[in-house]
């Protein structure tokens, strides 16, 4: 459902006048917000893809808001530490979270106990970007597309392994969803992040991997990895030649990583509106759009309500996957 919002992006961009009008209205309500620096908490380490998105967005939002938006990395526990920090922060809009599919859909399902409630403890601000995942294989693996891979996996069940950036990550779950929908067997090999996993796939230590498209894209272009399919419902704008998994014999398959801004629950609606407006303007900025495109991320601005609905829909979508794959962490 969110990808249809990508088409709505065009509408948004053309209707810039509308946005400006909305901005004026919002500005008059929250006239004195912000009057000091805003901290954008990134629940992952600096240098990762979420951090990159945050820094690009924060810089433009600072210009728009007239106050510094500072990125603070609070990494740990798969994003839970940073998210929990924001959930417990003053609900004044000065502490906001760069949330992801992990903090707001997967962790609450996978972990026995999450310190926060993904729906009740946060006030959604806006969706920002959707990043496709991709199924890549080492070029020495004799398969050219998903159908051939499925045939290979069915011919020799249990022989092949796939790498992911870690246990319980969106990429791991993409793999589990693939296994359960296609009815094939692959051993999961978790790594500490995409980098080391990618290394072992390049060296053909592990032949198959689910990765974020941005992290693999250099290798796909140079041919050191073979991309079989992207995990989104529609093909990625940056790689129109790569088919989707859904069109390659597993209809209905869809996973992706998304980033969105959240404030603590109880933040005044005027403040949320101001931040939402600022995020929208940032996403409409041509240089930001250019950067995101290079990064293979699709821009998806939304209203706070749409983000709230999105979180609900994501939790609903992942619940059966997590239960089927019996992924339960402490």
């Amino acid at each position, binding site marked *: 459902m969110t990808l249809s919002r990508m088409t709505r992006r065009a509408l948004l961009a053309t209707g810039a006048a509308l946005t400006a009008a909305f901005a004026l209205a919002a500005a008059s309500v929250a006239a004195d917000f912000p009057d000091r620096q805003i901290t954008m908490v990134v629940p992952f*380490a*600096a*240098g*990762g*893809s979420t*951090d*990159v998105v945050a*820094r*690009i967005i924060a*810089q433009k939002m600072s210009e728009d808001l007239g106050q510094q938006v500072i*990125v*603070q*990395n*609070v*990494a*740990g*526990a*798969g994003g*839970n*530490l940073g998210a929990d920090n924001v959930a417990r922060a003053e609900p004044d809009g000065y502490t906001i979270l760069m949330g992801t599919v992990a903090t707001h859909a997967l962790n609450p399902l*996978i972990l026995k106990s999450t*310190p926060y409630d993904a729906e009740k403890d946060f006030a959604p601000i806006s969706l920002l970007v959707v990043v496709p995942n991709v199924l890549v294989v080492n070029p020495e693996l004799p398969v050219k597309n998903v159908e051939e891979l499925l045939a290979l996996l069915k011919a020799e069940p249990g022989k092949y*392994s796939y790498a992911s950036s*870690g*246990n*319980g990550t969106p990429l791991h779950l993409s793999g589990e969803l693939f296994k359960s929908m296609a009815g094939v067997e692959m*051993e999961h*090999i*978790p*790594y*500490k*992040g995409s*980098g*080391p996993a*990618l*290394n*072992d796939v*390049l*060296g*053909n*230590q*592990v032949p198959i991997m689910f990765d974020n498209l*941005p992290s693999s*894209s*250099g*290798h796909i*272009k*140079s041919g*050191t990895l073979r991309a079989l399919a992207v995990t989104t419902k529609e093909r990625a704008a940056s790689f129109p030649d790569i088919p989707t998994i859904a069109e390659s014999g597993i209809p209905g398959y869809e996973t992706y990583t998304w980033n969105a801004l959240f404030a603590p629950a109880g933040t005044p609606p005027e403040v949320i509106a101001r931040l939402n407006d600022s995020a929208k303007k940032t996403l409409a900025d041509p240089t930001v759009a*250019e*950067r995101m495109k*290079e*990064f293979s991320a699709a821009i998806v601005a939304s209203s706070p309500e749409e983000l709230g609905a999105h979180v609900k829909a994501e939790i609903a979508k992942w619940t059966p996957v997590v239960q089927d794959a019996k992924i339960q*962490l*402490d």
Partner: protein
Amino acid sequence: MDLVSNLALGFSTAGSVENLFFCLIGVLLGTLIGVLPGIGATATIAMLLPITFQLEPVSSLIMLAGIYYGAQYGGSTTAILINMPGESSSAVTAIDGYQMARKGRAGAALSIAALGSFFAGSVSTFLVAIFAIPLTGIALKFGAAEYFSLMIVGLVSSVALAHGSIVKALAMVALGLLLGLVGTDIYTGTPRFTLGIREYADGLNFVAVAVGVFGIAEILRNLEGEKTRTLLMAKVSGLWPTKDDFRRMFAPVLRGTAIGSALGILPGGGAILAAFASYTVEKRISKTPEEFGHGAIAGVAGPESANNAGAQTSFIPLLTLGIPANPVMALMVGAMIIQGIVPGPNVASEQPALFWGIIASMWIGNLMLVVLNLPLIGLWVKLLTIPYYVLFPIIMAFCSIGVYSVNSNVYDLYAVAFFGIAGYLLVKLRCEPAPLLLGFVLGPLLEENLRRAMILSRGDPTTFVTRPISAILLAIAAIVLVVVFLPSIKAKREEVFQEED
């Protein structure tokens, strides 16, 4: 001739006034922040990262690289002066460097470190330039089994880090390995040894452990009876290395450079071993191994060179594959992506100016560092004349900031206090902290690769000996064990029995 034209392109890129300026700013900032006690390369880059995002891609990466090796120079300085390493590599430098400082030879130790690093940096930069692309092929041959065997080599030779009881050193390694396992198990997601504290789910922070067991333990030792400072200040005998020193550092620097260059290429943590491995080698082939731990020049020159060579060659997987070898390199990947450069094998062909510019800047940056640092040595040594009771509140304040700035995790600060007292008690029990730290960095790698190798081989343990590289490494470990380890136990035994008489 390709190489010549590539290098020419690199030097013309890195040699532009603008890039020279950012390279200088990078190494300067890196040194200055790195020299603050308790703040090493990772903390420095975490602090300085946002600054670099505003610049042109080439400039920002040149500056980041400058910060990286500048911080390593700075980190060695604090390791030598006040026994406060900010990185695993400078933990080795601290062992003999600090002892040299206590004997009034801080100046010599610092200049040996600087010159050794410069030599190693220059050589390995050219190695990067010549072999970057072919070498990546070798790195990719290293799978889980190979890494496990490599870590075993490191572990077996770690005993050399100790200059006291071997059994105690082994116990410290085991304790370090266990501490390294604290946190979430990556295969099952089970939290281990975290005492239910979620903030330790990603493991204990290296800086917190290192600052605690080395730095704070040393502060507390100096506060015993409050008169030890005079001991440290002894007499500063000569700022510069003597002719004899130069003669004695020559071979260790060469060996350190070779070891560091080779290990740095491996993205799975090879560079971590570089300084430890060099120390082991130097101690084993030295004619006077008893000097090690009491201010041996080879114990500073070798590891410092290895460390710097490893730092340069660890750029190889980053530049040719886009794969970060350590957290600092991960930050550089982030910086590239923010600048719209997709890291990967195409960087060299699509962005030749960037690729060769960074390589050339590494050499320029190392030159700048040695030029900057040699005159500064006099100043650093003067810092030792500051009364200790003034110095340590400063150290504590900077440690707190440095540890907190890495992840904004307050539990890292509590870990500093805990490992401070633990380190002090262990020192009082005559246990040395270096083997513990080696265990700490190796622990997670060892387990992760062991388990991964077993899963990949579907439970067949012969995978470690049927894979050729792994088998060779295990053979090396066995040789080290037999040739080196057994005789030294014997010698130790004899020593113990003599003491008894």
